[in-house]
């Protein structure tokens, strides 16, 4: 069961809906056949297997809608968050190490790097704001 659940969650939304549509068609045909041929086996199959497949189809659809909504919201969140800026991270690393660099009186290169990195870090903050 968990394997099926894992498989379902990791499907693409359109694939899940295709599965739901095919399952619904099978369930509908079973149910329609049961009212055309009112004999014990078709009626029992429609009421057990048909209903089961129909519920599975609807659950697949619900899962697809939930996954689509979640992926859409996740996409929006990732778009609004600042993109990783290599220059800024380098600058931060350099900033943290600048104290040590100043102590060792070789801070000229570090200050130059800091100056170069500051505008990039400001840009990222602006985006966040």
């Amino acid at each position: 069961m968990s394997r099926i659940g894992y498989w379902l969650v990791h499907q693409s939304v359109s694939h899940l809906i295709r599965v739901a549509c095919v399952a619904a068609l099978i369930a509908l045909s079973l149910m329609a056949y049961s009212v055309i041929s009112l004999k014990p086996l078709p009626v029992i199959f429609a009421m057990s297997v048909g209903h089961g497949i129909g519920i599975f189809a609807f659950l697949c659809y619900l899962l697809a809608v939930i996954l689509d909504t979640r992926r859409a919201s996740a996409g929006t969140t990732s778009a609004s968050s600042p993109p990783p800026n290599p220059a800024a991270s380098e600058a931060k690393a350099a900033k943290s190490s600048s104290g040590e660099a100043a102590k060792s009186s070789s801070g000229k290169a570090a200050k130059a790097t800091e100056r170069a990195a500051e505008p990039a870090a400001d840009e990222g903050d602006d985006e966040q704001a």
Partner: protein
Amino acid sequence: MAHSSPLTALTLICALIAGSICLHYLVRRPPLDLRTKLRLLLGLGVFPTLTAVTSTVTGMEATTHKEFCGSCHVMGAHYANATDPNSQSLAARHSRPPFFGDRSCYVCHADYGMYGYAMTKAGGMRHVYEYYLGGYKDMTLEEAEKKIHLRKPYDNTNCRQCHTATATVWQSVPDHESLSEELASNRVSCTSAGCHGYAHPFSKALQEQAAEGHGVAPGTASAETRASAETRASAETPASAAMPASAVPGRPGAPSSPAASGAAP
């Protein structure tokens, strides 16, 4: 056995709409926007639910019809006897009233009470199991007739759903009055040989012969047994007591001649 009713038509229409929505998505593959999602909600949720509900009601209703009971070949003789216009058996006479005649198997064999419907359907599932997995499917009709029997003694309450024991006509019968306690406690069956006779006398006669160890040859011997059992049952059965009120001669809506109404001489 096709069944045409407004509910059947509704089932098919709902299935058709839902199926076309699903097929449209599978063929066209439209983008999954809000409109498509809502359309799929109809095709995968609303219309299939309607189809399921209406097909279940239709199916459950169909299981109460005697054609449904007779669709298994082992019930062929019971069904043939019940639908025989010349038969005098209780089953045949109870299959004639227009009010419940087409559902006579269910009306007489369904458990009475609050959970009667559910219990009867559960019993029906056992019949299906016995038929497909219990060996009845492969039996010949002659073999099955000797073997088929009621799982528990027939409950008089089922008879008294219609033939109320509080009516003056019922109480005026001396045997009813003297046996009222036994009848109420099922110690004496309404459908016993000394009272109104067996509902399916041919099968009882065959079972009795099988129990005595006399093999019944299929064909003429079986037909003779059936005929004698029918005659015995009709001779034993008091007509006015065994028949529904509408079928008793002299009452409103009754046929003119006893032979046409299925009454015993």
